[in-house]
């Protein structure tokens, strides 16, 4: 009896400390894999940070969830000379601190990253800007160093920041207290704990439905899933593919997926292993790669095979190109023709701890290629090491397994820096391809560009400079009553979320 009473007291005490889950209809808690890096949009290059910032800041041109470009802070953009774009700004937009948005803020936002002493990781992206000219309060001209068809795509990435606020305050302060024009105002940030936003009632697109947003970083995947299951959070990113089944049986939780802008490939360097300079060997490797099997067994089906190294939805990609079939016999034939009928050994650099199942994919490739007589010497590198080798270029062995994410959704992104530019990471040289891609880079005729990329991709398909693998899906776990569809670029735009009543 005495024990019973004690138990009752303990149970009651525990009830008192039970967390009250956020059942408030106008609040939402979102758990991400890591915390924001810096809230100064120009001092970071990180998907989760950009996702958070897309709620606080706006861009001149807006990229819709189906990847089209439409007006953002600029109502109109027009090419008036080969190297000059004229943009008209919306009038009457104010930053969260009350400052009015004018052409001077746009000039500041586009020129600030060019200051090398700022230490911005994005400086390289802005180098194409020669000068930003303020015509009047609501008209700006962007002069580029050469004809640059990608400018609208870039302008859909770059957040517009308030000049006076950034100039008046200390950089360390600004990077913790963001002020933008976005749908949500910044409230508070306790690093690695929570970051709170509140609805901007004066938002130019209209006040958002959700009032309060809390972002919480939960690095450990199992904990993140548990937090959703326990009702502590409402939306989580990066659910592992193999845990999707658990959500099928839960009545108030759901999985939502979207093909990511990220694809994976194996780069082949013919200058480091002469076998790889032979197109038959490269084709043989592609024939020997069973991508559907990898997607099925390692990702529970959450992935899509790619035929050429570009993500779906990319401008310039002909989506009717069929991937190479899995054909180990053809692979063996080609290897025999090339004089490697008795086998071949190649080394591969592969990362661990970066992409979902990265190590396992590399091991699966080694296993599949072994079946046609290719032995893979696998170097599994911690992500920072792999990246350091990649940056150096010379440090990479003859093949490397990596992922590539696009932000412009334009074929130029991969085709120029990976194949046309010299030197590139796999020391690939093809004059015809370089000519096509370089021409497309400065052509302002989108039809001509699409045509040029079509020809370039035909060469890449035949030549197989990289083994094309697959595009993974971004997998989110959500409360079933959230009306929200994920975007392919990992941005969680809270203003597009509503809660079913």
């Amino acid at each position, binding site marked *: 009896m005495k024990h019973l009473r004690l138990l009752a007291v303990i149970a009651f005490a525990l009830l008192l400390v039970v967390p009250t889950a956020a059942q408030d209809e106008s609040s939402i808690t979102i758990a991400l894999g*890591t915390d924001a890096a810096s809230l100064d949009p120009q*001092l970071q290059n990180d998907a989760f940070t950009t996702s958070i910032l897309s709620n606080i800041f706006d861009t001149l041109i807006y990229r819709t969830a189906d990847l089209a470009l439409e007006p953002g802070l600029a109502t109109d953009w027009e090419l008036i000379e080969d190297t000059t774009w004229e943009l008209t700004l919306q009038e009457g937009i104010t930053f969260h601190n009350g400052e009015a948005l004018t052409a001077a803020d746009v000039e500041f936002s586009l020129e600030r990253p060019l200051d*090398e002493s700022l230490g911005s990781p994005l400086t*390289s992206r802005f180098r194409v800007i020669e000068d930003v000219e303020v015509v009047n309060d609501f008209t700006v001209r962007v002069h580029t160093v050469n004809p640059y068809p990608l400018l609208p795509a870039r302008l859909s990435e770059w957040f517009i920041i308030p000049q006076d606020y950034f100039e008046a305050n200390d*950089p360390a302060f600004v990077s913790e207290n963001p002020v933008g024009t976005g749908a949500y105002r910044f409230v508070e940030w306790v690093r690695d704990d929570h970051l709170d936003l509140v609805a901007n009632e004066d938002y130019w697109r209209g006040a958002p439905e959700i009032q309060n947003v809390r972002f919480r970083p939960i*690095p450990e995947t199992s904990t993140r899933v548990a937090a959703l299951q326990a009702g*502590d959070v409402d939306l989580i990113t990066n659910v592992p593919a193999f845990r999707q089944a658990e959500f099928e049986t839960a009545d108030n939780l759901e999985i939502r997926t979207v093909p990511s802008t990220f694809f994976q490939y194996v780069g082949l360097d013919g200058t480091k292993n002469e076998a790889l300079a032979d197109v038959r060997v490269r084709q043989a490797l592609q024939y020997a790669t069973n991508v559907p099997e990898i997607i099925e067994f390692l990702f529970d089906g959450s992935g899509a095979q790619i035929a050429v190294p570009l993500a779906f939805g990319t401008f310039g990609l002909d989506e009717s190109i069929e991937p190479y079939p899995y054909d180990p016999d053809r692979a063996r034939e080609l290897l025999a023709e090339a004089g490697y009928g008795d086998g071949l050994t190649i080394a591969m650099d592969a990362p661990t701890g970066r992409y979902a199942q990265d190590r396992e994919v590399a091991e699966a490739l080694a296993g599949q290629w072994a079946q046609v007589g290719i032995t893979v010497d696998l170097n599994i590198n911690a992500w920072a090491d792999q990246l350091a080798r990649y*940056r150096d270029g010379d440090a990479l062995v003859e093949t490397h397994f990596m992922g590539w994410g696009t932000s412009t959704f334009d074929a130029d992104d991969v085709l120029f820096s990976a194949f046309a530019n010299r030197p590139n990471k796999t020391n690939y040289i093809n004059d015809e391809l370089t000519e096509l891609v370089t021409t497309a880079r400065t052509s302002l005729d989108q039809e001509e560009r699409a045509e040029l990329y079509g020809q370039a991709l035909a060469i890449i398909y035949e030549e197989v400079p990289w083994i094309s693998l697959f595009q993974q899906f971004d997998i989110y776990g959500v409360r079933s009553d959230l009306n929200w569809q994920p975007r392919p670029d990992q941005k969680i735009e809270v203003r597009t979320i509503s809660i079913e009543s």
Partner: protein
Amino acid sequence: MGTFLARRLIFSAFVLLGVSVIVFGLLRLSGDPTALMLPIDATEEDEIVLRRALGLDEPLPVQYLTFLSRAVVGDFGTSIRHRQPALQMVAERIPATLELAALSFVVALLIALPLGIFSALYPNSFIDRLSVLMALVGQAVPTFLLGIILILVVSVQLQLLPAFGRGGIENLILPALTLGTYSAAFINRLLRSSILEVLDTDFIRTARAKGFANRYIVIRHALKNAAIPVITVMGLQVSALLSGSVVTETVFAYPGAGLLLVQALGNRDFPVVQAFVMVIAVLVIIINLVVDVIYGLVDPRVQITG
């Protein structure tokens, strides 16, 4: 006592200098933060520009001397990823970690002391065997796994405590249990064997001959003499708790210094890692000093002299 402290302080300064060289060197060997920051299509020129802006282009000895001369006055530089003062970032996190480590230590003692004493009083009894089993499991189960299991059972199934984060005491219970279990297992077994060893000595036999009750002998005489190795280990365990907090904080998304360290290492955020290691080194030196002073208080045979 005065000379003892003076000598220890001078010695500690050399230890800190050594630690600073090692952490600085190892970090530089581990890679380059700019590689992780830049877009994938960045060129070598972009890397050079960014390195220059972050002061990473100087020769290593120059970088080290700059670091050292600033560190002496408490300036550990600015976080590369977060653009905030590194020491301040670490200092903000220390209270959360100390809170967790302190509660874990209390958990460890609450489990270990009664079990250890009881096991020594009644060796080979049911409780003693049970405590052997618990010690084995406690030391063998990885902190990581124990944490996840506790979250799944207590937070998801029973819905009793929050799964993660920092807030009130309710947020601390699961991480403290996770972190304290390992130390509890260790201290418990050490206490038992050390009491049993003392029970075999002459003065205990004398006490027995006088007809004192076993329980009285253990608590009045044996415990005090058995305490020395246990105190040493407890001091070591405090350091272990601090380092163990790295895993526990990551599992529970608990915003302490350990989580900060894991992420700073992943991002090669040199200034933050350096500030963290130096702060922890100072803490460990202080703990060891305190342990040595406690020896003297517990055991009069230990002379604290120069």
